[in-house]
């Protein structure tokens, strides 16, 4: 995946870049926004008897490391559900904890609280908040129902199923109508919800959104009509 070859999108007048890594870059404040890391999802399943490969945290943090190396942001905003459950931060292996601490050096780090991680992560730096404003943008984990100009949220893990004569493809995507934007999940084990699901309907009543689909080396912007239900 080529990081940095993003697509410029306007959200409530603010210029952002949707990166093929799944991160959103706000150049004006040198902020990078990533949503739904779901760290330690693997070990969360393991507790319940499904011994998934314990490499999801490593994979997600490596991915994040590459994004930070490219953009060198002043501020990192993790848009909620950064940890899969309340004990996930404690289960972090020492090596992973160290990677996280290294990435936090010399920059502002904001944990937006999510439904999976309502409390601040134990033993980690960074400020925990419910919402944060950046210019005209309001960043929170779960999108509010109805009109919310400037809202940037996660929670829904949008994926688009694109169908053309060549075939069909299901990929993570940003969803935006220019007024608000839903970020794709960033975590290695985070599943996806089709943007045709009814959960998205109340968010984009006024205008049909576009899906900015994560390709291998760039973003592909696709009209809603081109996206199908699963």
């Amino acid at each position: 995946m080529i990081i940095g070859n993003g697509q410029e999108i306007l959200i409530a007048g603010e210029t952002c870049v949707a990166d093929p890594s799944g991160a959103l870059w706000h150049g004006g404040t040198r902020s990078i926004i990533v949503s739904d890391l779901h760290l330690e999802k693997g070990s969360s399943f393991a507790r319940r008897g499904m011994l998934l490969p314990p490499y999801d945290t490593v994979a997600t943090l490596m991915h994040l490391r590459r994004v930070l190396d490219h953009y060198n942001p002043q501020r990192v905003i993790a848009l909620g559900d950064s940890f899969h459950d309340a004990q996930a931060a404690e289960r972090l292996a020492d090596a992973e904890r160290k990677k996280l601490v290294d990435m936090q050096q010399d920059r502002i780090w904001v944990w937006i609280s999510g439904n999976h991680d309502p409390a601040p992560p134990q033993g980690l730096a960074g400020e925990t908040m419910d919402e944060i404003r950046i210019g005209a943008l309001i960043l929170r984990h779960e999108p509010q129902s109805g009109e919310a100009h400037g809202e940037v949220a996660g929670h829904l893990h949008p994926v688009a199923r694109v169908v053309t004569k060549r075939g069909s493809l299901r990929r993570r995507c940003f969803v935006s109508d220019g007024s608000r934007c839903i970020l794709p999940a960033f975590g290695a084990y985070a599943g996806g919800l089709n943007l045709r699901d009814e959960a998205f309907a109340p968010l984009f009543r006024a205008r049909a959104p576009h899906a900015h689909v994560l390709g291998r080396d760039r973003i592909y912007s696709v009209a809603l009509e081109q996206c199908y239900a699963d």
Partner: protein
Amino acid sequence: MRDHQLELLRHAQEGEDVLLIAPTGAGKTLAGFLPSLIELSAQKSNAPEGPGLHTLYISPLKALAVDVARNLEIPAQEMKLRLRIETRTGDTSASKRQRQRRDPPQILLTTPEQVALLLASPDSLTLFSSLRRVVLDELHALVTSKRGDMLALDLARLRAIAPAMRVTGLSATVREPDELRRWIVAPPAKSGLVIAPPGAAADLSMLDTRERLPWSGHGGTHAVREVYERIKGATTTLIFVNTRAQAEAIFQQLWRINDDNLSIALHHGSLDASQRRRVEEAMAQGKLRAVVCTSTLDLGIDWGAVDLVINMGAPKGASRLAQRIGRANHRLDEPSRALLVPSNRFEVLECVAAIEAAREGAQDTPPARTGALDVLCQHILGMACAAPFDADRLFDEVRSAAPYADLTRAIFDAALEFVATGGYALKTYDRFAKIKRNQDGLWRVANGNVAQSYRMNVGTIVESEMLKVRLVHGRPSAPRGGAAQTRFGTLYAPTKLAAASAGPAAYTGPLRRGGRVLGEIEEYFLETLAPGDTFLFGGEILALQGIVENEALVRRARSDEPKVPSYAGGKFPLSTYLADRVRHILAHRAAWKHLPQQVQDWLELQGARSRLPRAGDLLVETFPRAGRHYLVAYPFEGRLAHQTLGMLLTRRMERLGLKPQGFVANEYALAVWSLSDIGTRIEKNLVSLEDLFAQDMLGDDLEEWLQESALMKRTFRQCAVISGLIERRFPGKEKSGKQVTISTDLVYDVLRRHEPDHILLQAARDDAATGLLDLARLADMLARVRGHIIHKDLERVSPLAVPILLEIGREPVYGQAQDEILAEAAAMLVEEAGA
């Protein structure tokens, strides 16, 4: 009694395990039970705690177990035996199942999954200690799958619990009886063997159609009128086809011309089970004139009345065909009547090869399997659920199962580690271990939840993600009538097609639940449909309305031209044996005299315009057509191997700067098209065909491709479910939404990157080698053609190449990077914005 029945009895009375190979109709099943009935009649039944379980009968089909149980009552009564004969299947009530453990019948008829479940329970030691006989029915079908691996492991356990137990295997004719003789006992021993005399030779012919033979396609629709005439001339006809889609299409077309209102039914694996049962019962009662079916009826209950078998499309394998033919006329002294109906010109060659093979009695059943590792993992967990085990002893026991005879201790230990903690190099799951080794050195389950989860997930059949097809209420848009009103109509007849051919009117209201479930269909097929698209299912034309949770909601469509489900080709590839014979026919003019005139003309033309390859050669043709340059190869190795070859070949051509644009594969050939003139480059020795088809493509190129291969991900998913890494999805459980379930595709990506040598990836690679990617066959082919590649650079398309070129547009085109789909969709948006 017949000779082979007596002979089997003699082996059994001498205390031997024995394999009986007999054609259908030879009284095989009764023969299998004779030793049991005789022993039971001699046994005193006044033992204090009840006589206990004496005989276990295991069949691949639960319907067969039920039917055999019924038939067994007759000889038992004639011998005045007071026996309890019971079945145990997924349909057996919980209370009856419990009672069967406590107070078992003398004869229990069941399926491999039920045996695995019984063996994983703590009372298995007492339940099976009295066991004397195991009868394995349709063994030839069982041993070819992971289900067979599971059964072999369970047999090994039964032998350990009841050393006096003896096995009787019942099988149709196979290529290598010795493999089965080893399979039913602990290797390297071999069981006794009884071969019943073959029945009367089959009366076999190929339809010499009055119509023009199609160049390509698998529909066989050109011959429907002639097939209908044959149905009219017979009492009861079984019509075998290779895919569900084809079954739907043929069924629909037969009803279109069914002026005599013959009772013709449909039977395939996607239809609702209760509907299939109704068809089977109507068949048993002799109420049907014909059934259009897929391999779902390859095995099963004997239907005496069937006097004609029609095989439409490619026979695929000699043994498969022989077993289908055997479904007609189950009386040994009368010949079975069978008609082969090829659906295109290449299939004519395949049919002729199969008829020759059948007349010679040649067999091409697949070679013995190496036991699958995911099944081993499941078994290890099951054994821990039964009782704490010693690893050394379990290892020995596992190796006494034929498919696992060559298992190394290192792999066994890896499987054990996988069951315990996931077996990862990164040891972080010790505290979540499912089985633990205690001070006594024995492995035991960590807690009751583990055993519970095992019971929910046992078995080796992983359905593709299936969606229920439910008819939503709402405006029915097609009038019912005509054929649907016949006596069989409501059950078997397709809805009369509406004369109006208006397109599928989009349903605009909310999607409503309720309405009848018509059956199940693979999720990946529905992925190719958009709402409003029409398809044939259960003999009706349906329009997809949408998908809600695990159900596809459909409506009857006002449409005459459905978008037929395009399940690509058959599920089974052309056997290597038949492929050999087809190559031989092509190469030898003398063999052509058995071919229809139009096929002979076609081959003559090929000889004149290009050339006919000798049997050992690989012919590669190149020619320009409509601005593209084509390369067509004819390996005859089956669609799966050709698809894999196409993927690897286009990668290689890409690197050589040949600009391949895509390819299409069928059972016989592979066509690649590109922007640059490959033919001229080969002629000028700028590109070497030997290098292009070199075996080393199975190295790095393969590895690279596997990373993104959807087929590989599907294979991995099956291994993940069978091994117990992830839990099966159960109705009702998936309601919690997609975020909380885990996608095996994501797991595959992560595992592949971080621990490429993990045992589950090895299991998936093993499966791919023989399964969806057919790597083993591709490797053999590449070795075979080394130094035997014949290149023919042509000015235009050759007669032999026409069929494969016609499949372009009909079959999926491969080789285009997936992102191109996105690029195309994105381009449409740009166009829209620019307008």
